[in-house]
């Protein structure tokens, strides 16, 4: 799981173009939206694309998305349970 979390942080930095950030700067349990990383709705779409592109997960239920995108850890847990590639 820890390896997946580090990989996911690197992918988030690349997908969202956080040029000044390293994986160490992202708190695994911090909220992704609002406080924490402070992502917006466009970023949410990028994360949905990332999960499809990298892990073969199609996230179509908005209610599920709210729980999945709580933090990097919740994302990683969902990916581990649902990945198809």
């Amino acid at each position, binding site marked *: 799981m820890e390896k997946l979390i580090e990989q996911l942080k690197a992918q988030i930095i690349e997908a*969202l*173009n*956080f040029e*000044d950030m390293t994986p160490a700067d992202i708190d695994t349990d911090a909220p992704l939206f609002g406080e924490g990383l402070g992502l917006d709705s*466009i970023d949410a*779409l*990028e994360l949905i*694309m990332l999960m*499809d592109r990298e892990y073969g997960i199609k996230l179509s239920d908005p209610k599920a998305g709210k729980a999945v995108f709580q933090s990097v850890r919740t994302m990683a847990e969902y990916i581990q349970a649902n990945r198809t590639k």
Partner: protein
Amino acid sequence: MQVIHDIEITTTSVLLDGKTIAVEQTGDKLLVELYRRYAGDYPKFFKMDTLSRLGFIAAELLLKQSAISDQQLVDAVILANRSASIKNDTDYLATITEGNYYPSPALFVYTLPNIVTGEIAIRHHIQGETSFYILNSPEQLKPIVASTLTAKHSTALVGWCECSKQDNFYAKMQLIWRN
């Protein structure tokens, strides 16, 4: 119309009110260098396409030259170029090519050239007119500015903001006042 401040940014140089600003980088990296030196507190810059970065940085430098009261009085942002948002459009197209169908939402939001005027307005709390024109030459912008900025004692950010492909851009913008 009175020009209060003017700036010219090429891929290798920056000229602010006729004085050269020494820079180390060229091309797209030049805009990042200017951001780090003169802004640095607006991480959304890194999400912008090159056209928006160019206009954002030019506006940043122009308004930093002014007193704070001047910034509060900017009534309009009127920009133009010849190539619209073609560089970002091309980048976006690359994300939806056959066999690689992962359209990027972050690129999609910049597939309109007038987004740069919005980015400037948001940054500087400008609530007046914002518009972006596709023209053949900067000369064609002058009558448009004159007809838009009709009120006396109004101030506007105006100029040419062009980015046709990677590492290929040019901006000549002014902060003007209608006396």
